[in-house]
């Protein structure tokens, strides 16, 4: 890693001042200059060079290196959500590229700092990751790399089974009921006092008490409500060795740390692209650099045929919001205008655009962002469509250009990262301490081969048979892995309230 050369240092200061001027508010950001090998390495570790050892980082590295060597791809920037933030510049990039990256980075850091969904992330993650790395390396020394790595693989198989909203809500309510149940009185037959011991003999009462206690025990669902954070549930209740529990908790912590980045991909990239354009074109670049900038910008925002580029969608939406709020194209009055010409020329000259986009970057995530600001006009202008797989022709085909369908499909692909909702439903399934998971079925089936592998991973943690209830071909289904083999059988699928 090399120090930033003086001329770049000046540029960083300059861009930083402009960014502050525009109202961006970021953590202190430390730039470092790396060559492409180091960049690939850091990127393989998700931005944390001190991360724990694991083969998938090696795989990532191989792919990135190949992509670079064959000239297919190149990572321009890498920025880490931390206070201070760390950002890496690629040695050998031309000056306009570097300027773009620097502006882009400052906007990302502004987003990290201010967006609500990042508010609970650990801002000392660089230290925390090093700490995780040290702990896992210690386990590797004691247990051997194979064992630890296998266990990490197992944890990673379920690292999407967390409760993305739990950092913000207290999920677990009072839990006194089982106690109450246990102290229920045994109902006695009515009897005069002197007859009582004959009509309600003590043995009988004892027997009844035991029965009640048993009932209370069985009625006590475990977990009491369906548990979204499967990782946490296993951490607390699976029979794990101490090091295993620690590794699992590390994996869970990292999953929570990375979650907001997935929840705000479109916004975060859109925000950064919006600002790099604005900062560079209005204040930083001179005429001779504009072409280069247009070149890199078009690369960042390009989309290959039929694909949706999150950078492009995000930046376009932010610009659309700015424009609408500047012109007052929102609210009841606007919604009621259906004369096309009036819509086109509508301008109340409110000038609220800037204020609004800053508010949006603070309060929204991708789902709420799309839900609220993706308008029919916008979808039509940007030629959006939905596509699906046509089994007959074996082709992916454009299905529809209807706004409702586009929005629905887009939202669905974003909700929960486009992943299925899974809950722990019963940890004493069939009264045999089997684990029962519930897939909240919403019209899309689970991918069977992956599901089987995940069940295996769950079994390694739970060490008793694991089951998941789901739907296939419109019929309820129970998938089971008992440690030796997989089995499937029909099972009535009932929705659970969560």
């Amino acid at each position, binding site marked *: 890693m090399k120090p930033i050369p003086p001329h770049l240092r000046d540029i960083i200061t300059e861009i930083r001042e402009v960014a502050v001027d525009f109202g961006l508010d970021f953590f202190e950001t430390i730039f470092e200059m*790396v060559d492409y090998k180091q960049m690939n*390495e850091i990127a*393989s570790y998700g931005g944390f*060079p*001190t991360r724990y*050892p*694991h*083969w*998938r*980082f*090696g*795989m990532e*590295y*191989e*792919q990135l290196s190949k992509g670079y060597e064959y000239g297919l791809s190149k990572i321009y920037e890498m920025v880490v959500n931390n206070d201070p933030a760390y950002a890496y510049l690629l040695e050998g990039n031309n000056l306009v590229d570097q300027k773009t990256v620097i502006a882009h980075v400052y906007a990302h850091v502004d987003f990290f700092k201010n967006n609500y969904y990042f508010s609970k992330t650990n801002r000392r993650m660089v230290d925390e990751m090093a700490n995780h790395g040290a702990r896992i390396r210690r386990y590797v020394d004691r247990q051997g790399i194979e064992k630890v790595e296998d266990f990490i*693989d197992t944890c990673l198989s*379920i*690292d*999407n*089974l967390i409760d993305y909203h739990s950092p913000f809500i207290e999920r677990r309510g009072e839990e006194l009921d089982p106690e109450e149940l246990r102290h229920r009185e045994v109902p006695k037959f009515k009897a005069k006092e002197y007859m009582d011991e004959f009509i309600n003999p003590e043995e009988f009462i004892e027997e009844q008490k035991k029965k009640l206690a048993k009932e209370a025990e069985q009625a006590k669902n475990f977990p009491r409500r369906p548990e979204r954070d499967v990782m946490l549930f296993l951490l607390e209740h699976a029979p794990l060795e101490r090091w295993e529990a620690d590794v699992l908790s590390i994996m869970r912590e990292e999953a929570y740390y990375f979650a907001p980045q997935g929840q705000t*991909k479109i916004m975060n990239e859109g925000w950064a692209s919006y600002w790099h354009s604005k900062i560079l074109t209005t204040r930083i670049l001179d005429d001779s650099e504009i072409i280069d900038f247009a070149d890199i910008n078009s690369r960042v925002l390009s*989309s290959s*045929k*039929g*694909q*949706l580029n*999150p950078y492009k969608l995000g930046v376009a939406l932010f610009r659309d919001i700015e424009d609408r709020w500047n012109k007052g194209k929102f609210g009841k009055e606007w919604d009621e205008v259906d004369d096309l010409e009036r819509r086109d020329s509508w301008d109340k000259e409110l000038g609220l655009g800037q204020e609004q986009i800053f508010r949006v970057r603070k309060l929204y995530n*991708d789902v709420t962002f799309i839900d609220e600001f993706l308008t029919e006009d916008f979808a039509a202008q*940007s*030629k*959006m*469509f*939905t*596509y*699906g*797989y046509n089994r007959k022709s074996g*082709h*992916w*085909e*454009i*299905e*529809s*250009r209807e706004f409702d369908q*586009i929005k629905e*499909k*887009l939202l669905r*692909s974003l909700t929960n*990262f*486009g*992943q*299925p909702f*899974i809950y722990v439903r019963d940890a004493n399934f069939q009264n045999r301490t089997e684990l029962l998971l519930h*897939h909240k079925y919403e019209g*899309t089936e689970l*991918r*069977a081969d*992956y599901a089987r*592998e*995940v069940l295996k*991973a769950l079994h390694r943690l739970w060490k008793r048979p694991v089951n998941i209830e789901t739907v296939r071909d419109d019929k309820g289904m129970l998938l089971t892995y008992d440690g030796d083999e997989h089995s499937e059988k029909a099972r009535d699928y009932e929705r659970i309230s969560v």
Partner: protein
Amino acid sequence: MSELNKIKQDHRRFKQIVRGKIKRNLRKYMSQGEITGRQGKDVVKVPLPRIDIPRFRFSQKQQGGVGQGDGEVGDSLGQGEEKPGEPGEAGNQEGEHGVEVDVSLEELAEIMGEELELPNIEPKGVKRLETIRDRYSGIRRTGPESLRHFKRTYQSALKRMIATGTYDPDDPVIVPIKDDMRYRSWKETSLPESNALIVYMMDVSGSMGDEQKEIVRIESFWIDTWLRSQYKGIESRYLIHDATAREVDRDTFFRTRESGGTMISSAYKLANQILEEEYAIDEWNVYLFHFSDGDNWSVDDTSECMKLLDGGLLPRSNLFCYGQVESPYGSGQFIKDVLQKFEDHERVTTSEIKNRDAIYDSIKEFLGKGL
């Protein structure tokens, strides 16, 4: 803060896992020809399905997505399994697609040797081909001054002075005594340079179809890979025959399709001639592979073949392998004839290759003797 070492370790772990996967799936790779089609100069590309972390996810084909651009409803975006675009799915980085990994041929041979339990080959006694080289790779305490190893001498002197307390950091003068002296030393390493010749012969008569040739192609790739790992200088010759035989280059060997009758003896004659004229018997380790569907022209020709084997080919070679590929047209007689005559001959191996799945076992039969 960055330690390149660290990523190297993870990279090595990844490679190990890849290796394990190849090993476990070797039988599959051997029968599918996936690898042979992707051969570079020294490496092959091995497609590995599913090395990613399995997670609960949706079945792709029901999912679809949202895209952007021109086109009418019903227009195709592309064919096949892969999804054309993946909007917003950001949470996990691992891709859906399998990975393609480069594996060197050497490593592949090693994996193959371990999995098939192939013995290392004992080359024919050609000691005189050994070359002896001196290598300065050791250190010793005595030697001529011209070979003094300054750094090591300095180090041991420093070590001694620190240990005895005579080292003064303010006046770091190091004075070596005789005991500290270190000299470079050489070792004689002999590099056996045994040469090997592989002669591939294939029946390309009308009855050998494309599938049969594909089997031969895949099988020869693996044989080649293995033998190349065992010998330094290796030469390959390719002969094809129907009723007559001729020598061709590798490419033609696998592509030609002739028609007409089959005279196996023509190939054996040609092979014998090549061996006689070009390869000295005690300098070369010769491997003969012959693939056919076992349908020979006449009984006379078959007995001619036996004579050629007995009289010329077998004495000159380490190993003669006859692989009979099952074809719908062939009678499959030839293998019986070979076995009848040479069943107990230690340098003759036969194998019936019913289909692609049999390649694995066939190679094991061919190379399992370690000759």
